[in-house]
């Protein structure tokens, strides 16, 4: 096989491989949408985070505005401390409240942000004051059974 035909085939092969990688990155993966290069972080403390995981989405009005960057346990207040990374182009008022919600009945858990009415905006490393914990199904069922049992029979 001549040298130029060989080069042509190898070039074709390399371009095909690169195209496959590009397809994987842009069409299959989320490289195109994962634009969190400019972001700020805020903290929120929850009584119970349920099954929230690192990298779970942070949504406001259903739109993904950031990701959960870190989850740790605060031994001062015995609550879970969640670090949220929010894209810089989304500014939120300082009295924004965070709650842990579930998408669908069995879906993944995410952090929902409800904007408040403060005129000042959140600054990096602020702490969200109003939080609402995850709904734990077992607790709900337990409470329901307890209420049933203690209700006066009629």
């Amino acid at each position, binding site marked *: *096989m001549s*040298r130029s035909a*060989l*080069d042509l*085939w*190898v070039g*074709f*092969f*390399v371009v*095909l*491989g*690169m*195209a*496959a*990688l590009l*397809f*994987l*990155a842009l*069409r*299959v*993966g*989320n*490289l195109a*949408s*994962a634009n969190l290069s400019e972001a700020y972080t805020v903290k929120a403390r929850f009584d119970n985070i349920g099954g929230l*995981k*690192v*990298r779970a989405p942070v949504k406001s009005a259903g739109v993904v505005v950031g990701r959960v960057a870190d989850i740790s346990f605060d031994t001062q207040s015995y609550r879970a401390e969640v670090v949220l990374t929010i894209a810089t182009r989304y500014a939120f008022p300082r009295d924004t409240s965070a709650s842990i919600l579930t998408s669908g009945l069995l879906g993944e858990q995410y952090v929902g942000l409800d904007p408040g009415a403060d005129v000042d905006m959140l600054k990096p490393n602020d702490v969200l004051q109003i939080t609402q914990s995850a709904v734990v199904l077992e607790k709900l069922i337990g409470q329901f059974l307890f209420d049933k049992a203690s209700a006066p029979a009629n």
Partner: protein
Amino acid sequence: MSGAVVLLRRVGSVVNAGVARLGFAARFFLLLLRYSGQSLLRVHLTMREIYFSGVLSLLIIIVSGLFVGMVLGLQGYETLQRFGSGDALGVLVALSLTRELGPVVAGLLFASRAGSAVTAEIGLMKTTEQLKAMDMMAVNPLARVVAPRFWGGVVSMPLLAAIFSAMGVFGGWLIGVVFIGVDEGAFWSQMQAAVDFREDIVNGVIKSFVFGVAVALIAVFEGYDCEPTAEGVSRAITRTVVSSALAILALDFVLTSFMFRGVS
């Protein structure tokens, strides 16, 4: 008493031979890296090997990727649909291909298609004393014969794995969206939401690169180390395929346990 001694001696000799071979392989690898510079100067030698191990493996990689993806589409839909989440088919196909099946199956195919050919070629060169003749002519066979084949394999493998994964996703799409009728928007959007570029795709590429190094090294070493007889060459080829497969699976477990620990 003497029976036990003979048995112990045999165990010892097997272990000693294994350790010596491992040491030889390690020194071989270092020498190979040392002489790679020389061989990469004459880049057309490596180009030729990329053609033989990469371009000629394209057909089997594309066809297998397509069929693996289509089977994943059928089986995955069958199971997911029981839980009412047939829309998640894209996630299942894409994650299993980019994380595991792409690098591993492409690696196994590459070992049996290209690795065995490299071993046979080098083994036959050794048997017909071509390597010795090169040495006599002051041409280093490591730089002239072995290194280009090694680098050809290392370059080809990640590209082949990427092509395999892409074809698999296409196969899953073909079955899921075109034949079964999963909603196309849900198929792609759920896939894009679940597959992370760094966690899944880059890790898959790293895996395929490591497999490429392992398979190419095993193939050239077995060829270079083979007994210079017809039987020796055939045994070396068998060993290449078997130890490549074992190395890929073992390395895959090690890499997976480092990469996906705690990632949900």
